[in-house]
């Protein structure tokens, strides 16, 4: 299992989740958990995903997700889970 955190931040609009999930499914990235919230009028979504089944490497997924984000006008980031674990768990 290679857990990563995908975050999507931007103005809410129709089809954000669909677009992101379509890309992830096409690349065999398994979504383990999704949550979302609105912070200061901005749509914030977080997915915990497993990228170990994907044929593409992390850096390629990262730049392609960035492009998907640009198409729909949101900011998409993919980060390895360790940074959050390290910061928030002892």
């Amino acid at each position, binding site marked *: 299992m290679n857990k990563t955190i995908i975050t999507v931040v931007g103005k809410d609009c129709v089809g954000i989740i669909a677009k992101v999930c379509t890309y992830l499914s096409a690349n065999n990235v398994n979504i383990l958990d999704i*949550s*979302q*919230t609105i912070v200061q009028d901005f749509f914030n979504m977080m997915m915990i995903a497993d990228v170990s089944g994907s044929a593409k490497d992390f*850096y390629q997924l990262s730049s392609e997700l960035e492009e998907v984000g640009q198409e729909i006008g949101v900011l998409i980031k993919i*980060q*390895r889970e360790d*940074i959050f674990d*390290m*910061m*928030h768990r002892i």
Partner: protein
Amino acid sequence: MINISEVIETNEMIEKENLDVRTITMGISLLDCIDSDLDKVNEAIYKKVTTMAKDLVATGKKIEKSYGIPIVNKRISVTPIALIGSAACKTPEDFVTIAKTLDKAANTVGVNFIGGYSALVSKGATKADNLLIRSIPEALAVTNHVCSSINVGSSKTGINMDAVKLLGEIILETAEKSKDADSIGCAKLVVFCNAPDDNPFMAGAFHGVTESDAVINVGVSGPGVVKKALEQVRGADFGTLCETIKKTAFKITRVGQLVAKEASRMLNVPFGIVDLSLAPTPAVGDSVAEILQEIGLEYPGAPGTTAALALLNDQVKKGGVMASSYVGGLSGAFIPVSEDQGMIDAVNAGCLTLEKLEAMTCVCSVGLDMIAIPGDTKASTLSGIIADEMAIGMINNKTTAVRLIPVIGKKIGDIAEFGGLLGYAPIMPVNNFSCDAFIQRGGRIPAPIHSFKN
């Protein structure tokens, strides 16, 4: 499992509060490059640095991408060059060839600074040490990436006042050689007391002789994150204030620890230390001065500043120590003037003086840093300021440093522009009463009584 508010908190620190890893610094021992033939020394240094650090910059970029956190600088520190060149260098010019080699190697691997053009002369200087010190003005003028540091004192040895006297002259000469660029050469020269062997921050980084062949040291930063956290506890008592700084420092340092471990694994070089520092930049919101203001001061320099800085420094260490398996380097809050917009504002408002900065260095992590002073300051005055700062370090068992920039051709109230991370600085007044007779004495100040602990 990680929840969304934790993810948002981390990413806001990175995106809005300038949380970054300030530097991944690879320390490289050059002891095996020593030879009596200068050409062979230069060849061996170039080969070793470019081999060991060939993947450093690329690895840094990969880590940035993996965690979504900026790693601002990738740097190299090497064994003090006075040792490496001691068998081959017969003149200051010989040492300058090594500086050029280091500069070329830094260019090849793509790092922005290479530190270690250094000599450790806290008790006495060898012939090679003196040649290196005399070569500094030229070496810093003909290179772009090389940083120099000289350790002139320690709590164990006292202060080498001959070196202090010489460095006053060398700083002025370095300023003169780069006067067309506001004497920027001096921004790459640090005079230390109790210099650490594992400091990843420039300009004072060198790879100590107590270190292994190669090591990865990481410097974290994040004054903006601390400032933001303190905004949430405005008006609360000191207990709450300190607790907040401590928790924030813990979080910042954990990121440094993660990056250091990952860099060490990817480069197959042992992990050395994490330096827990709050290192400001000229960017708004990336300022140690703003933290002091948030603690309750109108400007740094106001009464209460030393106490505020002392508690900040101490809490950063308390929070950071638990977050990392090995802590070292300088570790604490940096208080440079030109690299911190809030400090510049305090000087311009007439609140912050050189004397108050000196008091602040008793409790901060380093010393008088990136302070622009008039270009016509006397060498002996510079030596006197260095001696004062070294005495603070020696007596208090802490690292202190001086990085003063006498800006040739500029007077009090003028502005010196250094550019980039080095920022800009208003020229500050210096106490010009003479200390000539004091500096002329020569010799060394003995080690303090509390150094005899055996």
